[in-house]
């Protein structure tokens, strides 16, 4: 019968072989090669410690070029080499680093070239994370159910905050980052800081109180709450319910800025805006002052050019009315017929000239006052913050412009009503006798069977009188 052990490339010592060396001199000595022994040890370890959990602190942690991670797990008494392959690292939800206490799951093996046993980790979790993750998930679900993360709850930040509230620690980098960025973007920003501890026992309650206090400061219309980067434990206060509720209850819009970009806390979900970092929060809270200037100047300039364009168009319109062909032609034709028509045409022309003259003068006045009003100078004045903008420029000039404008508009309206074309356009007609020597104003001037010419807005009618109504004028 063949012992399966004889399949191995060396002779397996049998129980009979064991015993104090030399006590059984009659047996042949079994000499292992180092490789053979190592193989044997590995076989034993791999079989015995196939899947184990071990708890310890990470040290000497580094990631090789291959992407595999090597480290040592230790406690106060002992240490063990550990490796984690790239394929397993992918699934980690945290970054292992020296000093971190973890629970590792894996199997033991032996690294032949060095004769070292080590644990090949399949999974790592930070000690205590399990409970925390659970708390995080539960609170998140609770608050989500209450609607605290609802996008419709999110308030818009003020375009230009009067005072910017900051709730953070005075010792951290966050407060300095925020101040630096705000100063750069908006030198005269008014910042009110409510210092608070941001980590450790009781920090959550302190942050909550700070939020409540800053929300009551007069003029504070936006609040940044947060801290710089740290471990999950360091950031934990921002996952506490009391902080979440304080942020939700803040009377003014809030920006949460906790840790680095990759850190996500409950506070981030509740706040009106989530900033990846404290510096980013400062950038979000107020646009660059220069951008504001540019925007306002652009708008102001636009108003100015539009206004000038408007005035140009008015000037053009007056010109167009003056040169309307209908005026001269029609009036001349009227003048050539009969005395009454002549009178009428003179009257018309006088009125038109008079109105045009007045209108022209009105326009000139308007132009003058506008020039004195000097739009450019007004914008210049604003831009350079001349506190005492010349009073003449504002009130009296405005009034003059308005008076001139009113006169101009009045004249224009009267002029339109006097224009013979306008009268025809309203539906009236002019009735001439057959020879076009007189305008028929009285029905008595014609007889049944007479022919008359009726001038309409467009074109003329040749008509025969078929009957004649009352000669009394309509009342």
């Amino acid at each position, binding site marked *: 019968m063949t012992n399966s052990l004889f399949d191995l490339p060396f002779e397996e010592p049998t129980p009979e072989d064991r015993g104090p060396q030399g006590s059984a001199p009659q047996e042949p000595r079994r000499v292992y090669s180092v490789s053979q022994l190592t193989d044997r040890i590995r076989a034993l370890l791999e079989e015995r410690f196939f899947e184990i959990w071990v708890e310890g602190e990470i040290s000497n942690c580094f990631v090789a070029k291959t992407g595999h991670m090597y480290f040592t797990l230790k406690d106060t008494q002992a240490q063990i080499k550990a490796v984690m392959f790239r394929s397993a690292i992918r699934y980690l939800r945290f970054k292992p680093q020296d000093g971190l206490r973890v629970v590792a799951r894996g199997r033991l093996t032996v690294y032949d070239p060095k004769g070292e046993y080590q644990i090949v980790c399949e999974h790592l979790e930070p000690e205590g994370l399990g409970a925390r993750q659970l708390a995080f998930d539960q609170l998140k679900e609770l608050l989500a159910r209450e609607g605290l993360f609802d996008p419709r709850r999110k308030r818009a930040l*003020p375009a230009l905050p009067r005072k910017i509230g900051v709730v953070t620690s005075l010792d951290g980098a966050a407060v300095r980052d925020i101040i630096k960025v705000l*100063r750069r973007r*908006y030198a*005269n920003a008014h910042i009110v*800081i409510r210092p608070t501890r941001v980590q450790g026992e009781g920090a959550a309650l302190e942050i909550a109180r700070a939020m409540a206090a800053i929300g009551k400061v007069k003029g504070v219309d936006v609040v940044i709450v947060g801290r710089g980067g740290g471990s999950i434990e360091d950031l934990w206060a921002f996952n506490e319910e009391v902080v979440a509720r304080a942020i939700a209850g803040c009377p003014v819009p809030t920006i949460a800025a906790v840790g680095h970009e990759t850190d996500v806390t409950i506070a981030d979900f509740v706040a009106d805006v989530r900033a990846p970092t404290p510096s980013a929060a400062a950038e979000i809270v107020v646009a660059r002052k220069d951008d504001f200037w540019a925007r*306002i100047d652009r708008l102001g300039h636009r*108003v100015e050019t539009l206004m000038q364009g408007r005035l140009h168009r008015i000037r053009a319109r007056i010109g167009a009315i003056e040169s309307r062909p209908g005026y001269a032609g029609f009036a001349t034709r009227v003048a050539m017929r009969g005395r009454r028509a002549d009178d009428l045409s003179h009257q018309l022309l006088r009125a038109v000239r008079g109105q045009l003259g007045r209108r022209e003068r009105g326009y000139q006045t308007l132009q003058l006052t506008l020039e004195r009003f000097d739009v450019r100078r007004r914008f210049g004045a604003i831009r350079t913050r001349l506190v005492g903008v010349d009073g003449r420029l504002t009130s009296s000039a405005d009034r003059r412009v308005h008076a001139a404008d009113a006169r101009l508009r009045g004249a224009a309206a009267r002029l339109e009503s006097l224009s013979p074309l306008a009268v025809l356009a309203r539906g009236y007609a002019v009735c001439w006798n057959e020879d076009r020597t007189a305008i028929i104003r009285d029905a008595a001037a014609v007889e049944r069977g007479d022919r008359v010419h009726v001038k309409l807005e467009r074109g003329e009618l040749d008509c025969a009188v078929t009957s004649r109504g009352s000669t009394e004028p309509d009342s």
Partner: protein
Amino acid sequence: MDSTIKDFEAAITELETIVKKLEEGDLPLETSLQLYERGVQLSRFCHAQLEQAERRIEILNERGGVSPAPANLGAEDESEGRTRR
């Protein structure tokens, strides 16, 4: 400052509306001038608001009191802004 202007935001919005109205044209001259005047007023208000905020950092303490922040917060160095003082 001006009781008819609510705040900076409202002022900018109104200014934009005025530009839009003027752009659409066809307004009586008087209305145009009124809009123009209002535009100037709003623009002036916005500029004033930009300069109005005080360059200041304060600490709100436990008792609700407010005091200037310690200089070591790095606040009082670079002044690249357009403050003219």
